[in-house]
Structures are given as C-alpha cells and as structure tokens.
C-alpha cells in the first residue's frame, strides 16, 4: 500500500512538471511596473491579453499605488529583481545607467520601434539620459502632461447665489459658504469648502500659484539663485492664507493625514466644493461614473474652473514642459528587451492607445462617432471600477501626442485645459542632473512637506518656525542643491 502511494505521489510530481516544459516554448514573458489608478486590475484581464497578442509576449504587471513607486522600485532593486519596464526620472536614470542597470535600446528601436521613432525620434537624442554614453535608454511620451485646474462646484455657487471666485478674498468667501451654508441643501453639516492632501501635489498648485509659487518645483530668486519653491519670497504669505482656511474650518482639517484616494472620494461623494486636480480626471475620466451623487449628462452643470489671482497678479498652476527628463526605461536584466520595445511601440500606436485607454472595442466600449471622439461604454463596463478591473485605462501611458484621451475629451474639459494653459506658473526647468538632488532630494523634499504641514497648523511663531525649517533644509544639503541647480540652469539658458 505504502509502495503504491509513493509511486502515485512520484507520478503526480512528475506530471506537475509537464506544463512547465510546455510553457517553456511559449511566449516570452516581460514584467512591467506601472502606477495604479485606484483599482487593481485582475491579472490576465482582457486588455492585458489583447496587449500580449499584439506584441507576442506575456505581460506581467506590477501595479503600485500612486506615491509608492519609488519605495516599490527600491525594494525591487534591493532584491535585485528589477521589473523589465518601468518609468524613471533623470536623476534615477543617470544613476541606473552608471550602475549598468539599464539596457541600451538602439538596436531594438531600429527593429521594433517604428512608431516610437516616428513620434519621438527627434526628441530621443535631446534627452540628457540619452546623451550620457551615446546610447538610447529613455523613451518619453510624445505629449506634455496636463495642467492642474481648480475645479469648483458651479451648482453650489448657483444655489448660494455666488459668483465664480477670481481672487483670494472671493475664494475664501466661497469656501466659507460651501462649508457653512449647506450648499447641497440636505440640512446637514456635511460639506467642506476645499479638500487638500499632502499625499498629492495636484491640490495645492493653484493656491500656491496665486502667490506666483511653482508648487513642488524649483524657483528662481531675484538674485538668480535657483532654489526650492519653499524659499520663494511669497511662501510664508501663502502659508498665512492657508492657515486662515485651516483655522476657519473651510479646508478639510485632515489634510496632513488624508490618503489621496480619500481626498478623491470626498469629491466623488459630493462632500467638497473646490478641488485642485486636472480636469481630465474631474470632468472627464471620472465623470459621471465615479460620482455617487446625481450627475447630469453635461458636466458643466456641476463643475467650472476658477482662476485665482493673488496679491501680486499671479495666477495659475505649474507650467508643463515637453518631457525630456522622464520616460520609460528597460532594465539590463531584462531577458526579452525586444518584446519590451514592442510593448512600448504598441502603446504609441492608435490601436494600443485606444485599447489601453478605452478597453476592448465592442466588448467594453463602442464608437458612436469615431471622428468626433464620441463613444459609449457597454454593459457592466459603464461602471468605472469594473472597467478598470478589466484593464480599461489601467495600462494607458499617455504616449502618442494625438492620444485617445485628447480625442475623446468632452468640451468642458478641453476648455478647462485651454484656459489653464493661459495661466501657467513658470519655473526653471532644468534638463540636467543635479548631483545634490540625487544625494539629498528625498530628505529635502520631506523637510519641505513637513514644514508646509507644520506651518499651517502651528500655534507657535510661524516666522520663527519657518526660519528654522529653512536653516534645516539648507544644512541638510539644500545649499549644495542651490549652488548646483543655479549653475546648471545658468549653463542651460546661456
């Protein structure tokens, strides 16, 4: 009996090896690390299968929560299990190239990268990461990023008899009314003027912009020094305005502890009246699927955009430049770089762009008028969460210039982006690596975030605390950063 059982077990174990042999000759596999969009897609969903069929490879996706990309990538680096394909900025890419961690893509581009070369071929040699040793390592998207809007509930404005705010005082009045005057008319104290969260930069840009500060970017002082926006001469004034919003309860008090998704949920559930975020999300991609209150077909009945002008005449959000310092890179440990380049190339094609943005045609959506960019979601895919769980939008990387999002964007969203581009807060866009940023960047960034949160809520002497934070920032490598950034920018604009 024992002998029979042993034989049976041995036979079963041998049989379990069969699929391994069978798959060995099948498709090459690649791993791709992407930032998640709030909903984790099912493994091997329809969209991923279609991508695999199109490029002749099995794509294994590592989906990372927004904000956790660096930590995840560093953990994978520490374990020496880098994903084959991921997005890197210039500072990281330069370090990776020096360490031999990235794969030169020249030969694969000529074989499998026709769309890439057609759309960003001229841009490739201009990228600093691709100038290090003459090889191409980084592939950027063809289009610039979207601008951040200050989205305002116009239905609430109408209900309360208010005008769209245009300056800091009128914004305060609107926020106050949105918080205390029951704008949703349900008789409950369940709304708040504005929701901000330290977990994301989007929400803050227009408020800092009203003081001429490029939030989360470098700025140039009058003497030509390039430094952190934290040392902008109007920084403290902006903080004082934010303190007023905080103290008067017209901004959500949990701004320092609130995760990004919770902030979004406050908008989606109709608890918040003003929200800083690119309208592409607020009035287009999320509308109406993500909202839990009743939404009319036309988003302009619910949302409008405010341009807030500050005391010095400044207004807007951070300017967007063509991507030269960030892009997709391939790990040198990748066993199938040709398949990875095929994947990137596919994302540049109209077919790949439509698939990753809208999903599988005639299953998840269908075109009503393709020329006009009109489409409709089908069946259960009307629900945003179901759509994303099945791979819709999840793998979309905004690669081609004329992309699905731009083609299908509704009129209000297009208008919001166009208006916002007229109000861009400029900043010194440095296209070379700053060593001090690589060395101290994360720690300096944390000091600034800590300072911002702390200065908004402190009951102590704001100016004295600000000075302490500035001294700390300077001593922790900030002065080195300033010197390098100033020299690099001066050389760049020469």
């Amino acid at each position: 009996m024992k002998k029979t059982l042993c034989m049976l077990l041995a036979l079963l174990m041998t049989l379990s090896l069969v699929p391994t042999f069978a798959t060995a000759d099948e498709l090459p596999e690649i791993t791709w690390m992407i930032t998640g969009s709030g909903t984790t897609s099912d493994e091997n969903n329809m969209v991923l299968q279609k991508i695999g069929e199109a490029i002749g490879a099995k794509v294994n996706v590592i989906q990372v929560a927004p904000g956790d990309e660096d930590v995840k990538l560093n953990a994978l680096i520490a374990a020496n299990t880098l994903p084959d394909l991921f997005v890197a900025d210039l500072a990281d890419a330069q370090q990776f190239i020096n360490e031999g961690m990235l794969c030169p893509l020249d030969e694969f581009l000529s074989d499998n990268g026709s769309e890439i070369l057609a759309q960003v071929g001229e841009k490739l040699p201009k990228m600093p990461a691709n100038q290090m040793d003459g090889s191409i390592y980084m592939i950027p998207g063809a289009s610039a990023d979207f601008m951040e809007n200050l989205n305002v509930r116009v239905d609430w404005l109408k209900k309360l008899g208010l005008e769209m705010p245009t300056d800091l005082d009128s914004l305060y009045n609107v926020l106050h009314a949105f918080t205390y005057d029951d704008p949703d008319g349900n008789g409950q104290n369940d709304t708040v003027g504005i929701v901000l969260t330290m977990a994301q930069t989007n929400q803050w840009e227009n408020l800092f912009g009203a003081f001429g500060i490029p939030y989360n970017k470098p700025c140039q002082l009058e003497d030509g020094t390039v430094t952190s926006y934290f040392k902008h001469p109007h920084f403290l004034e902006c903080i004082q305005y934010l303190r007023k919003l905080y103290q008067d309860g017209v901004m959500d008090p949990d701004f320092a502890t609130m995760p990004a998704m919770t902030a979004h949920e406050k908008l989606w559930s109709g608890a918040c009246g003003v929200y800083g975020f690119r309208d592409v999300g607020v009035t287009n991609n999320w509308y109406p699927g993500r909202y839990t209150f009743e939404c009319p077909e036309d988003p302009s009945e619910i949302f409008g955009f405010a341009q807030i002008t500050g005391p010095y005449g400044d207004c807007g959000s951070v300017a967007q430049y063509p991507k030269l310092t960030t892009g997709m890179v391939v790990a040198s440990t990748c066993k199938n770089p040709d398949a990875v380049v095929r994947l990137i190339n596919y994302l540049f094609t109209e077919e790949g762009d439509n698939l990753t943005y809208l999903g599988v045609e005639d299953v998840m959506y269908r075109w009503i008028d393709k020329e006009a960019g009109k489409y409709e979601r089908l069946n259960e895919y009307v629900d945003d969460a179901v759509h994303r769980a099945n791979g819709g939008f999840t793998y979309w990387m905004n690669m081609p210039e004329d992309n699905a999002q731009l083609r299908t964007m509704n009129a209000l969203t297009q208008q919001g982006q166009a208006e916002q581009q007229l109000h861009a807060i400029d900043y010194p866009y440095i296209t070379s690596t700053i060593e001090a940023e690589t060395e101290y960047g994360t720690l300096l960034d944390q000091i600034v975030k800590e300072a911002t949160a702390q200065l908004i809520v402190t009951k102590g002497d704001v100016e004295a605390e600000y000075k302490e934070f500035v001294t700390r920032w300077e001593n922790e490598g900030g002065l080195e950063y300033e010197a390098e950034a100033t020299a690099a920018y001066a050389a760049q604009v020469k």
Partner: protein
Amino acid sequence: MTGAQISLWKRFCKSARQYWWFYFMLLPGLIYIVVFRYAPMYGITIAFKNYSVFKGFDASPWVGFDNFTKLFGRAAFQRALYNNVIIGVEKLIFGFPLPIILSLMLNEVRKNSLKRTIQTAIILPNFISWIVINGLLFAMLGTNNGAIVGVMRFFGYVGEIPNLLADKEHFRAVILLSYLWKSGGYATIIYLAAIAGIDQSLYEAAEIDGAGRLQQLWHITLSSLRPTIVMLLIMRVGEVMNAGFDQIYAISNYLVVSVADIIETYVYTLGMESRKFSEATAAGLFINVIGLTLVLITNHIAKKIDPESGLM
C-alpha cells in the same frame, strides 16, 4: 584542547549518540537560525562600503566609517535617535511592569470564567495589525468624522477638540497608550504560566503563619516571579532601541514626524525611499550594537545582584 574541553567534547559525543533523535529534531531549528539569522549578517559589511546593488557585496568599494560619519552629521538622524530613546524608554518604563501588574491582578480573580474572559480580552489586541489599529484610531480620534468627536458633539460640546493624531504635544501619548493596549496583555501569558508553577503549599504555610493577601503576593508570588522578571527585563532592555517600526510607520504623518520619527523609520526612508542602502545599514547596525550593549550591561548587573539570575 585542554583536558576539560576534551571531557566536554566526549560527553557531547556520548549524549549525541544516545539521544541522536533529539539532536536530529534540533537540526531544522539550527539550520533556520544559521541560514536566516547568522548568514545574513554578512550584509552588515555594506555599512562599511559604498554599496551598489549591481556591483554586489564583494565588488562594492570599502569606505570605512564614512557612512557613519555622514549619518551622525544628519540632523534628521539626530532627531530620530532622540525620539527613539524617548519612545523606547517610555515603552520600557510603562510597558514592562504592565503585564506583571495585570498578571498579579488576574491571579487574584477567583472566578475562573471571569478570569478567562478578561485574559482573552486583554490578549486579543495583540493579534490585530498596526495598520488595522491605525484605522481604528483614525475612526475614533479623527476630528472630522471621529467617533469620540461625534459623541462629544452629541452631548452638546462645542469647544475645540484637538486632533490627537496630528498634534505633536499628544502624539507620543497616543503611541504609548496604543502600544500598551495592544501588547500589554500578551506578555501576561508568561507570567501567568510562571505563577501557575508556584508551589501552593507556600501559600498555605504563609496563611497558617498569618500572612495577608498582600504579604503573600509580595513575599511568595513576586519573589517566585523574580527570575522570570529579570530574564524578560534583560531581553526587553535589549529591544529598547526597537521603538516599534510597524506602529510608527502606520500612524505617523507630516504633522507629528518631528516627535515620532525613530531610527527604524529613518532607516526605511534612507533605504527604501532614498536608496541609501549603506547608510541605512549603518543606522540599523548602530541601534543593534546599542541593543546588544544594553543586554550585556543589564545581564551583568542582574548577575551581580543575584547570581542565579541573568541569561548567561
């Protein structure tokens, strides 16, 4: 080899031959400790190197104590060290006696069903992860929709309610109290087991001699627990620098980071967010060396006071 060593070796060989199955059973545990506890210690070398993942341990260049010099020069590290000491000592001072007190109190409960219910209630929080506890704290203490705020408002309180999770002045108290709630009960298991092992005839004799409950508790229960208390104290002191990464990482935020950032969270920032693996290892090695030193000192003191106590 000296004569004594040869004799010891012979005794070991004899014992190994005689009880080989016990030694065989010991093997997996030994292998585990060697593979997962001792072998990774080779990684400590990167604290003294300019470590590059792609170059590996051996090819990365030696830099001596440069990483330590850099580390100690960072204000954020100094702050983390200070917080670490404060939080670690607080947890030791309040966290160490709590299970002893709880055990003594539980031991005095005469009704078994009540005793078991209380014991289960105080041990259960240990099995809740810090992430869940963070969620509970947020749900209870949040100023926006928190339960406590809701109750206070329900009863008509209109004054200002501080956000304890975002208030520097109270945050360490939140850390300490949530730590005591979670882990205070679990350590009672060892003390209750030790109490159960005390010879009951000692209590009977003491009662005949006229000793009251308090005197019995002091002279019999606590005296009998002394070796257990000393052993656990030595081990706990060794962990004093481990101020609780899981807890603080889960609960910390930008408003309280100045009083909550500890070495372990700083190591995480250095290693996982800034990719400074060498400096992160140096920081980790530093707290472990302190921990080991504290264990040795406490052990030495314990043996001086009572030669029967101590770990080695």
